[in-house]
């Protein structure tokens, strides 16, 4: 019963690629190819590799190594709320102008 096949939550899980549009809206640049570091365990990897939970009142990005929350985003009618405390850093590539 407790195997991966029956884990509905895991089957619904996506990755950072699913949030590419939202992240680009927030940061004004493409973020899924951008590296970040988990503030909890130190794992480094592109944002496209983070686990994404989108069936939710908000979206949650988690570290694929330790499953800690790296980033949370809530979209309300008036605003976007962002909590990025779970990321040691975010890297925003400069636009070529």
């Amino acid at each position: 019963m407790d195997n991966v096949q029956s884990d509905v939550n895991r089957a619904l899980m996506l990755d950072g690629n699913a949030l590419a549009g939202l992240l680009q809206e927030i940061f004004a640049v493409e973020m899924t190819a951008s590296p970040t570091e988990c503030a909890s365990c130190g794992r480094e990897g592109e944002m496209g590799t983070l686990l994404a939970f989108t069936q939710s009142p908000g979206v949650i990005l988690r570290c694929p190594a330790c499953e800690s929350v790296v980033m949370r985003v809530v979209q309300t009618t008036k605003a976007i709320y962002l909590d990025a405390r779970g990321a040691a850093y975010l890297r925003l590539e400069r636009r070529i102008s």
Partner: protein
Amino acid sequence: MADRFISRGFLGKRRQPDVAGRVPPGQYVVNDFPVLSAGPTPRTPLDQWTFTIEGVVGESLKWSWHEFLQLPTQTFVVDIHCVTKWSKLDTRWQGVSVDTLFEHVELDPQAVYVIAFCDGGYTTNIPLADVINGQAFVAYNYDDRPLAPEHGGPARLVVPHLYFWKSAKWIRGLRLVETDRPGFWESLGYHNRGDPWKEQRYSGD
């Protein structure tokens, strides 16, 4: 803002009419039971599971799974309303009323709020007045079967008169506190109390 583009022939999810005043504003009724989650399903083995009442109480208290199942249980049939706009009517649960749990502890009059804490780190804050007097229960059966892990099993909190994000899945205890502490969603733009009848979805609503 410029005129919004309308998609020809698109009406969105079929909205069912308000069933005799049971559907709060902005909600629609569903027949399935959507799974929403902020993380992977926690998996605490039942022989390690405990439920704790702690904080501003005379003495904190802990039940094992076996002990928890010995507590007086009731069947609850309630309507539930998710902030993502779906509502489900006449959902059927078995579990222990929060009033029953509080009978076993001495509540301090300073305890004005509870924080529900859960496997996986989720928390939600609720005024004490909203979880007593028959308004909340800890459920371990849904539809007469053990609560499925994706819906919060082995046990979840159910507080039907507030938006369903307050009905914390995988609950492991209640902490009584004097000062309110916004939980997982309340700290990121969601309303602190979440009354669906006043459409309190986001902070500032």
